[in-house]
């Protein structure tokens, strides 16, 4: 009996000892790890969807909070303690604000995911090399898009074009804005070469196209030509590239007959050159945008799950700036609404993207199946006209483009007398055409009009004014804190 126990124990003991090395090496069961993923063509297909996925928060953070709210399009007169957009609207931005950090990290998350693909894609066997080139180009476009957002918001930022460890990342300080633009331009040129005009398979709609890459490339040249870089030779380059997009009209893109239909869920992937794809379902793939600048007691038939944000309104400054008869105004803004008790009430609000036909399908207050345009053909048209004006003055071609946009909006043609008049006409046109799409703040900076336009507004409403340092946002303090001295702060913060 006793002997039996002793033997038994000895056997168990020796077995356990013998296998101890292998015993402790356990791979994750329910997750793939970076050690075994990113190895095959289908892995790359899926990883690329992961890069696109990183775009989902961009419209809310960059286009709404950091662009529209940072202009005279938006006003919050009463104190809202809860949200950063109040502080942004009052130009009291601090480096500690969560929205600033979110914008920075969202962009680098996209960059990191793209780098993960781009580091390995050349070594992976694809059935079709064209597809590999295309996917590589998609990743490079998306990475360039993220850098474009970063450089517009923060100026110089760290330039990381491959995977880095946390220790390695501490060797990368801020790269000058010029170099970032050069990188973006080079990347977009290459990406455009590898991308198709259109995807043969309808199931691929929503992916990046050659036109999107050209359009963004032209836009990058326009920004480099504008304030504060003022490299005006880029107007010519921009003009050439943007023209290539315009030449594809009615071949690979269409000009929408009416303005309002551009922002309807039914017309997703129909008119715009590049859109963030949102779908309904309550799983976090929907858009929060439609419920953002609307009254909190808006009738539930329009807003079944309530507002996403609850304060602020389009400014009277914006509303009063519309010319009489501009069809875009009521496609963008309303000054009356029906509340939950069916009382028609006066309050200014943004109705663009609030597509009543899909309201009933939403599952949460941020679950709208309405895509958000990141690049519209109208913008390419207007940027082209602007580039022409900068190189050759208000030519017939440039004015015709301007009036084509105006005419769709139900407005009479204009004839700017000189380049300066054209610029002002363009500023107004872009403000109305792209209101609440997140372009306005960057337009004001690019054209160096932000002080002239915003200071009167800020003085009237908030008894304050800003200086030129405010053309950039501060580098997020949490990033600076990680290694003091690695990233300097922007002037004025």
């Amino acid at each position, binding site marked *: 009996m*006793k002997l039996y126990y002793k033997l038994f124990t000895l056997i168990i003991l020796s077995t356990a000892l013998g296998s101890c090395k292998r015993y402790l090496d356990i791979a994750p069961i329910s*997750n793939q790890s970076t050690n075994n993923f990113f190895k095959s063509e289908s892995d790359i297909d899926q990883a690329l969807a992961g890069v696109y996925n990183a775009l989902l928060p961009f419209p809310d953070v960059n286009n709404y909070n950091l662009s529209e709210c940072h202009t005279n399009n938006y006003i919050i007169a009463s104190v809202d303690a809860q949200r950063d957009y109040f502080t942004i609207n009052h130009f009291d931005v601090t480096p500690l604000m969560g929205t600033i950090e979110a914008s920075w990290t969202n962009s680098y998350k996209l960059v*990191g995911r793209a780098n993960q693909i781009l580091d390995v894609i050349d070594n992976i066997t694809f059935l079709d090399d064209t597809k590999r080139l295309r996917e590589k180009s998609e990743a490079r476009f998306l990475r360039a898009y993220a850098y474009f957002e970063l450089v517009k918001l923060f100026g110089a930022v760290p330039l990381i074009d491959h995977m880095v*460890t946390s220790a390695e990342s501490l060797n990368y300080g801020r790269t000058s804005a010029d170099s970032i633009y050069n990188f973006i331009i080079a990347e977009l040129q290459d990406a455009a070469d590898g991308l198709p005009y259109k995807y043969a398979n309808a199931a691929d709609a929503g992916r990046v196209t050659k036109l999107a890459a050209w359009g963004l490339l032209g836009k990058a040249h326009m920004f480099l030509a504008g304030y504060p870089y003022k490299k005006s030779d880029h107007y010519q380059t921009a003009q050439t590239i943007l023209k290539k997009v315009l030449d594809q009209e009615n071949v690979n893109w269409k000009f929408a007959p009416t303005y309002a239909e551009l922002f309807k869920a039914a017309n997703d992937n129909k008119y715009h050159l590049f859109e963030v794809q949102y779908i309904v379902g309550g799983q976090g793939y929907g858009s929060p945008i439609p419920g953002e600048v609307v009254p909190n*007691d808006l009738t539930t038939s329009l807003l079944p799950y309530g507002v996403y944000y609850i304060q602020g309104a389009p400014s009277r400054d914006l509303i009063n700036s519309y010319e009489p008869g501009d069809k875009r105004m009521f496609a963008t803004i309303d000054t009356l609404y029906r509340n939950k008790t069916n009382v028609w009430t006066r309050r200014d609000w943004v109705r663009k993207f609030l597509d009543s036909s899909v309201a009933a399908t939403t599952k949460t207050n941020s679950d709208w199946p309405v895509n958000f345009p990141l690049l519209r053909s109208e913008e390419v048209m207007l940027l082209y006209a602007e580039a022409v004006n900068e190189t050759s003055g208000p030519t017939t071609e440039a004015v015709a483009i301007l009036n084509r946009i105006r005419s769709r909006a139900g407005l009479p043609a204009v004839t700017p007398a000189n380049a300066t008049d054209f610029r002002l006409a363009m500023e107004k046109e872009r403000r109305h055409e792209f209101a609440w799409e997140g372009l306005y703040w960057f337009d004001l900076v690019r054209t160096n009009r932000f002080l002239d336009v915003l200071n009167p507004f800020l003085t009237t409403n908030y008894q304050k004014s800003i200086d030129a340092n405010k053309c950039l946002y501060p580098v997020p303090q949490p990033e600076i*804190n990680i290694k003091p001295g690695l990233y300097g702060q922007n002037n004025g913060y």
Partner: protein
Amino acid sequence: MIFSAFFAGTGHAMLTRRRNLQRPDPNQLAFYIRTGTYCLLLLVCSNRLLAHNVGGQGTRAIEQTITENVKTDTAITVRGVVTNANGQPVAGANILVKGSTQGTTTNEQGIYIIRNVSPKAVLTVSAIGYADEVVGIVYRTAIDIKMERSGSNGLDEVVVVAYGTARKRDLTGPVSHIGPIEMQDRPIVSIDQAMAAQLPGVQVQAVTGSPGTPLQLRIRGAASVSASNDPLYIVDGVPAENLQDIDPTTIASVDVLKDASTAAIYGARGSNGVVIITTKKGTKGKSRITASVNFGRQTPEQLVPMLSPEEWIQFKKDLIDSSWVARGRSLGLPYSATDDMNYRASQLTSPSTPVANTHALANTNYMYDPYWNYGTDSLDYVDWQKAFYRPAYMQRYNLSASGGNDNVLHMVAGEYLNQDGIIPASNYKRYSFRSNIEVKLTNSTKIGMELAPSVSITNGANVDGKNGVGAAVAGTAPVQEKGMGSNSGTVGSTPYRWVADQLSPIFQMENTYNNTQLTKVLSNAYIDTRLAKGLNLRVTGGWNTSSSDYKNYTPTSVASSRRTDKPGSKSTSIRNTARNQYYLFQSVATYNLAVAQHDLKLVGGYSVEQNFLAQTSQRNSGFPNDNLYTFDQNSSTVTTSSAFESKRRQLSFFGRMNYAYNGKYLVSATFRRDGISRFIGKNQWGFFPAASAAWRISQESFMAPLSNIVNDLKIRYSWGIAGNDRIPGGDYPAVGLVNPTSYNYNGALYTGYSATSISSPDLRWEKTTSQNIGLDASLLKNRINVTLDVYTKTTNDILLAAPVTAATGFSTENKNIGSVRNYGFEVMIGTTNISGKDFSWTTTGNFSYNKNRVIKLANDNTPIYKGWDNTVKIGVDQSLYSYFIYDAIGVYTSPDMLNKLPVMSTNKLGDPIYRDVNGDGKIDASDITNMGHADPNFVWGLTNRFTYKNFDLSFLLQGQWGNQIFSLFGRNIDRPTTGLGNYNAKKVWANRFRSEAFPGDGKTPRIDASTSNLYDTRWLYNGAFYKVKNLMLGYTLNKPAFLRGLNSIRMYFSAENIWMHDKYDGGFSPEAFQYDNLADWSSYPTTKTFSAGINLGL
């Protein structure tokens, strides 16, 4: 010579120099027996009892005389009663004949009989909760034995240490112990509740009052940031996740190993201390059956003071006026707060449909409710906290049987607990069983099995935390539409338009089905065999399994409030299951050798462990109706569906050596080598040594003159290293994981994947090195027992999900980032104040001081920011969790103050004044300063216990101070601009700044203060409190005349948390402190419980 002194007087002389006692004649038999409290000297000469003396270090006399008669050595039968100091019988006491296997156990009346025993033999009597007694038979046939309760300082008390037991007198490291006396009859559902305030150096926080939820234990302060600060729990030798669902009445003792010297043998998991739970075992003798019932009534301990409905209306009016003026500003119109409602209505009028100044149609953003003038005639006023929290009842029934014979020992217990929560529709039920069986196979081999299955069923939605119902209840506006009251927000109700259209939390709780069933089995089986003299081997197989089944059903009426959706259409249902399987295989060999003055004990062993977790989750939405909450594919839509599994393993080798010379000099050394699958490559293995030594000074001859004062004195020193591997990141914290990150192309979801965590192959153990100097003393005839410990505990390589530059593509990485030191001291004092025949009074107190400092951080001591909006800064030379916020010191109540005091550029009249910390004449971010820390410096507990005849009374006081509570819940209800008065606000807002003429209390700013997006000390509360934790009155009667067949009956009344003094009004309890230990997000209120019960012994 010595005997002259001995025989002097009445034969009850004192013996002072016992070491000099010599046996005068070989025929004389001298017993010198030292028991726990007194000495007994007996001399027997030539079979004749010459004298007996009782005294020595104790003065208690045995109250018996023995006639001087000659005895023979013929075996005799001895019987008697074992009683406690109050004369009550001690049931289940073990009586062993020293040096033999002969023995017995007392029955319920405390009676024992031993047959066939030598008249010269010596009996050892032991019972749980009492100090051992040693009694010589000395030819007596009737020996009644009185046993002394062991307080927490009884030197002969056996405490459980890693892989074995030790007498308290032999301990070389800091171990705290509580026995059944500290736990009995409290209205508690888990043992951690009984540990609060009882153990020095152990802080037990009731972070939630939610029934069945484990509490938070911290042993000697927190050292980790991201890794767990929870101690390791060992239940009967097998590690357990927590102490949930273990019936506290089956627990015999709780022992806490506090430093690395005692815990290092648990290696990788020892650095936060180890809590060893030992359950009751069967003892020899007739089976004893005990039955007990307990009934209790619970009410909230304290609520949060909020605005009354009248105060809220005034507050809401001010907010409306403020919005009105702001609207004017944004439209460029000169609106004023004094504009009347008709004017406002005209300004808000649309050309086609005018806004009327009526209750039904007024614009709620800018106009008052006309009904406010009529009060409760037209509106319902609701005190939501009073309506929501309600008295709740609990009942518990226990039945146990234990006993045994020479071959089999058993202890079988069952429990049924039914505790209603103080929130509607919440309830906790538990059925638990325990069976501890040990069988003697041969003289050298025993096998045993300990099995504890339990089922617990929890009903009730999530109350704790940011999105919990607790926060919602306090914040729900106190004014509702007439007749709607607590029905507000339900289907068919009329919403009150001036407040958030919020569903009544009462309705929500009553109509949401939220049920968790947790089935657990804790089990282990062992073979214990003596391989050779002194050499023992115990092989244990442990298996713990728990499986939880969570069901949630939110009907349309809750999901979509009062909208007219078809029943079922907006309903959602969740099913989550989790299955945890843990096994342990462990072999431990022990070797004891006692030669002359040398006493050597060796322990060596190894163990293999694995933990496997499997989870599934499914969420469905859209049901045909609200009648059934179960779902299938046809009747509803699957929103999410997932399955998850993970596994971890551990291999360990360990050993310990204890050596004692002459009971005076004690040394101990342990080691452990642990390998764990959580880390990679060479970082998998860690080595954890420890050593300790103690010197019992009182045993030295030079202490003899003091022996009347100092009965026992020991100093000890210990050193050791223990580890911590409990890092966030599940079982694979070092691996870069890839998770789904999908996107849709053309409206169809396409599953994508991305790396969501960064690979950290260099991740290694967090290691804590601790040193402890301690002193144990028993003074003044053992009436005073003192334990004193001074320690430092340095944790290196602390694990943190540390922020990394976003340029990596990630936000955090699991890293070893620095060192934290905790140091402090602990005092435990137990005194016997009065010890009379009818009346006794004992006091036990403990007091702990702990200070916590960060001593080193990675990247050249770069501070790390954590917490909500970086309000917590981890920096060198400060406490680990320090709050860096503005110091609010008042309100700018006059233009003069604005002109003269330092200001922020945005400051206006009525804004809070922040302290100009750097004295530069302006307030900016550089004035954010260290305003205190989250961990208390002092924690104390004090128990007084009185007995008078059959009555006993005890009360337990508890307190702490030195900590600050940062309450984000407090902040939410303390910023009017949050939600624009759609919710209720803290009471202080009744005394807010209104104007220079009405400045309020000088601390509460104006309603739309411009700095309310900043963080200041208005939301940092002093966490100090002291309270009466427990008060108990009991009455025990043996063999009651009124009921034959009953051996004993005990009736008691016990009250928990009856009174508290604190300054905390930012949440429900100064102990409720969650969210990574960094802020209170509101919690399930802790409860006051009054309970009564009866225990029967059959």
